[in-house]
């Protein structure tokens, strides 16, 4: 019995740190409440602004969320998830490396909505709507870029990342 207790003690100590980080969030729902793994996957659409001819005047181009990229969050029904994302920088460095010219950057400001058009801001908490045994939430991502009067030409690219957590 002493030997068993010793093994349990060792096991407890080795796993103590991760366990403590979860106590607050899990204890209210109970140990038996196994959570559906959370996922977010791209479903359709893209964030391609296409071809824009530089006119020498500053312009703002936008993609409406419903015309942009659709992500589907799947997780535990009725649980809240925190959605986080940030603006990103696009650059034309790959294009310039091939064709020459000047490098430039653009900032992509994301615009995120749910199915009903409710704006979603980074850090917002959203409930996963029950759909059978799963909880689901669609997020539509569009956004805008500001093109400067003297913006260098080229193909600009950047990676937009959206995260969700319980």
């Amino acid at each position: 019995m002493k030997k068993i207790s010793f093994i349990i003690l060792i096991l407890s100590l080795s796993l103590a740190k991760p366990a403590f980080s979860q106590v607050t969030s899990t204890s209210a729902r109970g140990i038996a409440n196994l959570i559906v793994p959370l996922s977010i996957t791209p479903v359709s659409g893209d964030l391609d602004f296409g071809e824009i001819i530089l006119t020498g005047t500053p312009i703002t181009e936008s993609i409406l969320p419903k015309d942009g990229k659709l992500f589907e969050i799947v997780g535990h029904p009725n649980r809240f998830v925190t959605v986080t994302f940030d603006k990103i920088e696009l650059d034309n460095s790959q294009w310039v490396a091939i064709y020459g010219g000047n490098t430039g950057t653009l900032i992509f400001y994301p615009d995120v909505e749910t199915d009903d058009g409710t704006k979603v801001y980074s850090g917002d908490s959203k409930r996963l709507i029950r759909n059978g045994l799963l909880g689901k939430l669609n997020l539509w991502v569009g956004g805008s870029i500001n093109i400067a009067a003297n913006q260098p030409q080229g193909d600009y690219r950047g990676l937009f990342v959206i995260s969700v957590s319980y």
Partner: protein
Amino acid sequence: MKLIFGFILFLLTSAVFCQNNVNSSATVKVKLVKSLKIKKVKGDLNFGEVILNGTNQNLLKKPDEGIEFVILGHPHKEAIVTYQPALLFLENQIDSKSLLFMPAVFETGDNIDFTSPKSVKSGSTVALENNNGTGKAFIWVGGKIKVNSTHSEGDYKGTFTISVAY
């Protein structure tokens, strides 16, 4: 003993909850295209002085002796070139005895010299070759004018317009 197993179960389920943060991404793309310009490099479409001899005459100007233009735009894009024959009128007098200038247009790619010219029909496209991040194509315009025996003497002038578009 039950307490021990419960504790172990808690530790194991706690480990599952560590996988609560997931993300997805999308590439944001935009192609910024340099606007088109067409500029005169050199030359003119002056047919000079022609002596009326009472017979029909065909006046000819070779493209390399006419006007050279350069189209500036986005590398590897194609520009549509359009133009029309031009009417030349006696100065300060628009009458039925105008002269018709029939243009002959050629392109030499990014070669500033009249080497390996290719005919350019109105409405056809010209590829803009890359030159350190700028697309270029040189255009050469010559043409002919038919002078009838009935034409009046005097200075005839008209405007020839050539347009480029993506």
